[in-house]
């Protein structure tokens, strides 16, 4: 059953089969027209013709019989096929005086024309005609076939000639692969695997040469400013858009070839709020659930309870934040193995955000992998294990969240009277600044060096802390 379904799915994604379906449709329509409609048209013409033929024929016979006169046997033989009562009627005519012939023929004609023979002949001609029509429609279908093939040929050629600007595997990729190798956990399966993925919208850059992998059970943060390519990457995962080059695999399967199959296990929360006009929340959630091969009813009520979502309201009437909740429930109701979140928290109040994060953590503990895109670093910091930073379409860093915060930089603030900030201008110090007798800087390196520098002076206050992701982030972007 599954194989049938798969080949069916594949069929719809293959243009060749679509063309074939078009042709079959053409043949069916052709036959329908050839058999049903054209005969109607034909019969109209032929009946008129037949009527004329019949008229002449019967007039001729009638006159003929009259001329032969009194030869009742011959007349009877001729008109036998008309049936008995008509024969007797005809015989009657023959013995009429000549002057009455015309009027008799008239009435005779009326009787005959509208009865047996007319119908008989009509039937025989209708049988002949369709074969003729099939020829005609066969010709039409072959024309359609030829045209479809030509169209396909040109479309294929066009897509081949559309060679996209190819970027050389840049430094970013080297960094990325290096990072990847250091963090590779061998036992866990790759849930998302992205290799040199590039997408151009015409000439505009989407993403360039992006590579990374997401392991099973991770909560993977994906941060970058607006327009960096976060949404582009996610839309490529869901084959909402098609890559210019490179490939993405989810659950080890290519996202384009096995799209529907993969999406069975993906829960996606789009960044933009959507709704079908006039639909109630519950209707939408049920519609959403109807796409999956499992019963999600309980989960719908559970999740909406948790998110305090009123199921009986129309989506149009909901506030932005409540629409967002509909999106969240819709994305999680089938308990997917991979949850893809595109800036999910915008519009949610802090309390709801907290609930949402807890929900995501629960799902994660249940075994779901989470891919979380955001430009708000605080939330990524709270939730994620690993984070990839994307800038202008390229990944510039992939790090463990803790490593990113602890091992890299310390944020140092020293308050002392008459302190000269230049004394801290040593190797490993960056973003050095001073205001109102306080010196601020980031430090990366041996911590003893900096503490000794501080202790040489009499200071009134010292803070050394891990910087927020925000501060690191800004650092990367400068």
């Amino acid at each position, binding site marked *: 059953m599954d194989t049938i379904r798969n080949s069916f*799915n594949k*069929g*719809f*994604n293959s*243009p060749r089969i*679509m*063309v074939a*379906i*078009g042709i079959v*449709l*053409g043949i069916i*329509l052709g036959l329908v*027209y050839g058999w049903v*409609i*054209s005969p*109607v*048209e034909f019969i*109209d*013409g032929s009946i008129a013709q037949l009527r004329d033929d019949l008229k002449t024929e019967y007039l001729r016979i009638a006159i003929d019989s009259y001329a032969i006169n009194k030869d009742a046997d011959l007349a009877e033989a001729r008109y036998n096929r008309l049936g008995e009562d008509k024969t007797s009627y005809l015989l009657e005519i023959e013995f009429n005086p000549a002057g009455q012939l015309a009027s008799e023929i008239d009435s005779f004609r009326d009787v005959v024309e509208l009865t047996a023979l007319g119908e008989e002949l009509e039937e025989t001609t209708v049988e002949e005609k369709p074969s003729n029509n099939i020829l005609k429609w066969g010709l*039409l279908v072959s*024309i*359609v076939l030829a*045209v*479809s093939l030509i*169209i*396909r040929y040109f*479309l294929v050629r066009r*897509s081949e000639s559309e060679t996209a600007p190819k970027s050389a595997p840049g430094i970013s990729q080297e960094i990325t692969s290096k990072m990847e190798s250091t963090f590779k956990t061998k036992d866990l399966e790759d849930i998302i695997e992205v290799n040199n993925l590039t997408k151009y*919208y015409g000439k505009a850059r989407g993403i360039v040469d992006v590579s990374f992998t997401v392991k099973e059970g991770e909560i993977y943060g994906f941060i970058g400013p607006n327009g960096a390519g976060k*949404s582009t990457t996610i*839309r490529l995962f*869901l*084959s*909402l*858009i*098609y890559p210019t080059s490179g490939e993405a695999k989810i659950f080890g399967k290519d996202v384009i070839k096995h*799209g*529907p*199959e*993969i*999406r*069975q296990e*993906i829960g*996606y929360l*789009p*960044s*933009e*709020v*959507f*709704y*079908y*006009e*006039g639909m109630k929340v519950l209707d939408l959630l049920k*519609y*959403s659930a*109807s*796409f*999956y091969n499992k019963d999600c009813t309980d989960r719908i009520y559970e999740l909406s309870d948790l998110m305090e979502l009123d199921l009986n309201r129309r989506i149009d009437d909901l506030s932005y934040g409540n629409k967002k909740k509909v999106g969240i429930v*819709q994305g999680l109701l089938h308990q997917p193995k991979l949850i893809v979140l595109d800036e999910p928290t915008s519009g949610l109040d802090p309390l709801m955000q907290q609930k949402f994060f807890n929900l995501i953590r629960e799902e994660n503990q249940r075994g779901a992998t989470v891919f979380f895109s955001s430009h708000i670093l605080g939330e990524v910091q709270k939730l994620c294990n690993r984070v990839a930073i994307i800038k202008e379409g390229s990944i510039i860093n992939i790090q463990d969240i803790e490593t990113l915060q602890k091992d890299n930089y310390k944020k140092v603030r020293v308050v002392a009277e008459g302190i000269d900030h230049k004394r801290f201008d040593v190797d490993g110090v960056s973003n050095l600044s001073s205001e109102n007798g306080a010196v601020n800087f980031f430090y990366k390196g041996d911590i003893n060096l900096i503490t000794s520098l501080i202790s040489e002076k009499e200071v009134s206050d010292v803070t050394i802390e891990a910087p927020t992701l925000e501060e690191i982030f800004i650092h990367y972007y400068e």
Partner: protein
Amino acid sequence: MNIFNHEFKSYSKSVAIWSGSIFLIILVYLSAMASISVDIQTFNDILASFPEEFLIAFGMTELDLSSIVGMYGLVFLFCQICLAIQAANYGFSLISIEERELTADFLLAKPIGRGKILTAKLLAAIASLTITNLTVWVSSFLIINLNNDGQSYETKPVILLLLSIVVFQLFFLSVGVLISLLMKRVRSVTPLSMALAFGMYVLSAFGGMLGEDTIELISPFKHFEPNYIIKNVAYDTPLVLISVITILIAIPASYLLFSKRNIHSAV
């Protein structure tokens, strides 16, 4: 099946409105004309006083208002315009509405192939159009009989006219889908469908007047011209073929374009 149900339901209101309006158009016009036909000579005089171009434009040159079928032919032209706008509306919005209301992100992220989505949507649109089609059948015969004082009339041309609706609707539906997929973004459907429907009508109506014989051949209004069908009690087969071929090209082409389409995010 779920997509079909959902789509079909969402068409219900629109189908009811279109079917109702077409019923009213047939009722009002046919009844009005039937009452005029009592005084047919005066009406013919009035018609004769109109400029020739005007009569051509409204398909009134070969008008035979002495029979109910002749009158029905003129009313059927108005029906055709409505049917064309309705079908083009459905065609243009079929895919574009998903992109405009951001539901494409919802629908295409579901575990279902694009081909199946398009098939379900097309079938839902065709089913909805068929309901309108059936309404036209029923109301046509009903109203003709109402206004015919129990006299008999030729049903064959009427049946031929009504049979043509299927192809006529499919033409505007499939061309609408194809055009919307060729466009990068469809902002508003109504202007496009109005333009397509009226454009085609104008091509057919004014084409003959301007002496542009070839251009009018692309218009289904020309392919299924009521006057021709009633006069000859037959279709103009080569012209009908143009419509059929257009449909047969537009539908596979739409599948091809949709399966390759990049669904852009909003704004």
